[in-house]
């Protein structure tokens, strides 16, 4: 095991999910969707980004050993790893629960209650992890859509920008039409004019006519929000 002095030289810190160059190549910390475990030490393309602004980990200046076990990483001060594993497992369980439910507008469902409980406990960390799982194809699209709508509904100014950016990412990158539409609904709830450029991009690239129409119809809601801010 490497000693702490060697492993945390300097005061630099990176956010969870960032990558950096080492003699071994690009190194990152993230979630491995295949093993469903936190991973590190492989190329950044294999990682899913994490955003946790208030939780930073020590910059490590040596190349991480691919065989490093969890205790070694924790020794290096990467306490977030364990937390990521827990929240990932909890989210996967609740997404599984949701896959057995039928969702109907305006009707309560157990999935949403349980999902929001996790968000309440883990905050933005749970939201970024959930979006990560959704975009990596780990979640049934109709369940993902429900989660994205609930993410938009959360009344929390401190996570406003991150939630908006994550939903915009889902609108542009979601493989399923359910995911893209769920993101749109979430974005309407947030109703931030900063979304306008993303909506215009989504209109250009959306292949499903009905969803494209819905995005076009949603645009004035954001433009009205922009006007009201002037």
């Amino acid at each position, binding site marked *: 095991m490497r000693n702490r002095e060697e492993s945390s030289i300097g005061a630099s810190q990176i956010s969870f999910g960032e990558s950096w160059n080492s003699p071994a190549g690009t190194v990152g910390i993230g979630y491995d969707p295949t093993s469903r475990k936190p991973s590190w030490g492989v190329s950044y393309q294999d990682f899913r980004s994490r955003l946790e602004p208030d939780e930073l980990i020590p910059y490590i200046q040596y190349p991480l050993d691919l065989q490093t076990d969890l205790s070694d990483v924790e020794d290096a001060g990467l306490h977030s790893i364990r937390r990521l594993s827990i929240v990932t497992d909890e989210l996967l369980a609740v997404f599984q629960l949701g896959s057995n439910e039928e969702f109907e*507008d305006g009707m309560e469902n157990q999935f949403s209650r349980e999902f929001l409980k996790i968000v309440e406990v883990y905050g933005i960390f749970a939201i970024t992890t959930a979006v990560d799982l959704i975009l990596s194809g780990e979640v049934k699209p109709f369940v993902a*859509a429900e989660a994205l709508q609930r993410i938009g509904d959360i009344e929390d100014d401190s996570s406003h920008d991150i939630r908006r950016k994550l939903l915009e990412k889902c609108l542009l990158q979601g493989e399923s*039409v359910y995911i893209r*539409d769920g993101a749109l*609904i979430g974005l*309407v709830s947030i109703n931030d004019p900063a979304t306008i450029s993303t909506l215009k991009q989504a209109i250009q690239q959306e292949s*499903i006519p009905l969803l494209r129409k819905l995005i076009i*119809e949603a645009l004035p*809601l954001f433009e009205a929000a922009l006007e009201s801010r002037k």
Partner: protein
Amino acid sequence: VTFVFRRIQMGRWEKAEEQHLWLPPGEIIADPMADFFPTQDGKLSVYLVEDSRPILDRVVAALAAIRQGLDKFEYGLMELEVLENMGFKTEVSPGDTPDMKVNEWHVNLIELSTRRILDLTHIFYERSVPNMLRRVYKPDVQELLLKSNEMFFDPNKVTQPNIRKFLGL
């Protein structure tokens, strides 16, 4: 022009617009059929309306008031005449919402067989997608609820606890 108003789930119709290579030509994925269930005794609950904003808003508010919570509302419209020409029949049957006028607009499509539900799904897909499928987002639903509560609702008929709380009843 009189339209048949039916609550739907937009995602099912979006799914129908996706390409599914396994589908035989001329067929659509079965998901949207779920919007024409449940039937009871071969009858399906719909509303007869004009395509006018105040009327549609009023129906949306009335139906949103009988749900468990505040949420977006999605519906589809189809010309009644088209359905009548296809042999669909209606019967008058008062609705059960807090808005008495909206209740008068309620009818049942009757004598529905599995084949007729299939026909209904296809005709909606061919004639109503995408322009006659509409979505009202949650903030607008909230606004419509407040307006209808002020102008049209019988407060005693608003029974859902979350809706009563939102309306201050």
